[in-house]
């Protein structure tokens, strides 16, 4: 059986590693350290961990002050609170001041499941993408999460890391090295390209297997950094395959799908289908049932790929 680990779990482990590597690493949480897994850091470095309580706006400001004083700060809580409740604090205290704070939003997307719409961030990528200088990343598995967290220590820009509650398959090998701003081709193919982020990458890979059975070869691209978007890999995919599908556990408004469409409509108009939540709130249910109902499955991706292909043929 494939090994599974939640990206939030990997985040906690990576924080503990980062703390060993660098004495300037400081971690904040807002009463959810057991859920975001920042508790792994707290156990090892209690003096460099500050629980700010149920006060996310204050946590963001505190993170800004620490970063302005040279600390490498990670601040974590659920994605809805991390960037939704605190948008103005992030905008003014962190982004406008260009401070390299690392914000981690766990429990993003429908994958949050039973807690329901109030706790399922479906707009967090969109919000963070609008802030100048903000880097937005959504790792696909535990390995990528760890590499990303460790590499983030060197960033000069603020960063938003989107994490998932759910255990998901480990895709990358131990030697995998994440690079900010770079997408990667996970499977090559010439008929259609599927660009996926976060937990949707493994579903895109499943979709590829389904498509192969019908004689369609899909190129699967992992887009862990949504901003800055790897324009080259998207434009190359559009030129070489002509049909694009995006896949994300996020609203189709303003997320990966939005970013890809913005780029392609300016530079390489192509046949694009966006798989994601179609401008609506989620609801309470086990994640798998939600993925089914809201169309975030391998089958849905495969079917989007076929319609993108069909439209490409019409355009020809």
């Amino acid at each position, binding site marked *: 059986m494939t090994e599974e680990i939640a990206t939030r779990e990997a985040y906690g482990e990576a924080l503990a590693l980062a703390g060993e590597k660098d004495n300037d690493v400081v971690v904040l949480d807002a009463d959810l350290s057991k859920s975001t897994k920042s508790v792994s850091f707290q156990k090892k470095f209690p003096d460099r961990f500050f629980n700010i*309580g149920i006060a996310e*706006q204050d946590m963001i400001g505190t993170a800004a002050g620490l970063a302005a004083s040279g600390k490498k700060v990670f601040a974590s809580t659920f994605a809805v609170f991390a960037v939704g409740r605190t948008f103005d604090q992030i905008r003014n205290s962190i982004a*406008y001041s260009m401070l390299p704070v690392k914000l981690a939003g766990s429990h993003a997307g429908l994958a949050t499941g039973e807690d329901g719409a109030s706790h399922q961030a479906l707009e967090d990528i969109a919000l963070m993408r609008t802030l100048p200088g903000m880097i937005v990343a959504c790792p696909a598995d535990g390995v990528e999460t760890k590499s990303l967290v460790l590499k983030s220590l060197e960033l000069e820009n603020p960063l938003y890391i989107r994490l998932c509650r759910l255990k998901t398959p480990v895709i990358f090998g131990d030697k995998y090295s994440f690079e900010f701003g770079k997408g990667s081709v996970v499977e090559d193919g010439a008929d259609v390209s599927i660009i996926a982020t976060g937990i949707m990458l493994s579903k895109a890979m499943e979709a590829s297997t389904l498509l192969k059975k019908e004689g369609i070869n899909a190129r699967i691209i992992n887009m862990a950094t949504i901003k800055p978007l790897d324009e080259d890999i998207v434009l190359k995919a559009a030129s070489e395959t002509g049909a694009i599908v995006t896949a994300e556990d996020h609203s189709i408004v303003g997320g990966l799908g939005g970013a890809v469409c913005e780029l392609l409509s300016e530079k390489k108009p192509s046949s694009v289908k966006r798989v994601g939540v179609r401008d609506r709130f989620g609801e309470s249910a086990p994640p798998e049932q939600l993925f089914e109902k809201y169309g975030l499955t391998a089958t849905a991706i495969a079917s989007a790929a076929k319609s993108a292909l069909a439209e490409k043929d019409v355009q020809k």
Partner: protein
Amino acid sequence: MEKLGAEQLSVKSAEMRKEILKMTTCAGSGHPGGSLSATDIVVALYYREMKHKPDNPLWGGRDKFVLSKGHACPLLYAVLADLGYFPKEELGKLRTLNSMLQGHPSSTKTPGIEISTGSLGQGLSVANGMALASKLDKSDSRIYCLLGDGELQEGQVWEAAMTSAHYKLDNLLAIVDFNRLQIDGFVEDVMGVEPIADKFSAFGWNSIEIDGHDFEEIISAFAKAKECTDKPTVIVAKTTKCKGVSFIENVCDYHGKTLTSEELQKAIGELDLVCNIETGEER
């Protein structure tokens, strides 16, 4: 840097008030009211209380000042320019295209500004982060944060007040510029915030109430704050909006309204009088 005494500080304040009025009138917009009310406090901080090096704004051992009520930046700009953080000519470019002096403070544009502010309620949290960092670094660097009384209506201030007390940030001094006015009128009419000192005390702070225009009281409150350990200190400084210019003192409209050139001349005349009396040039 030479530490100024009470008399020299009041002359310096009058000079800064003139600069504030000149630059806001020249810009045609800005916030003179809350700049004038906080002038004596900020002058006392920069010319007497704080460790800092104008020729090396990022000096590691410096004390840090967070202007949480960011709209009072004309005051901070006047002080920073006078101290040599940047050339005085910049003051004439306030709020104009490509100027380093933005309508509200920007840390990436102006030397000496520690953090961008302007959206009210955020500064105390940032000051907490700086105070925590100073403690982690075992540094004696102290953090000063100036808030408005109207600003206390922002909930984040009280989240931050809990954090400062919880982490025993005795290297942090918050000062409330208690000028009783906000844009829509008297603070107590818009949304009451009193009793301010009692509120902070209830949140676990050491609270001191003073006349924010009396330098002896300001200096003595700074000293008392340093003696207090294991608690953050707040100085609630009773001030007068538009202090120093008789015909606009306590007039709500001048929160965000600038003087006409005629009014400016009259105001400068009044302030010159202060300078001359204090320096004994005219008696």
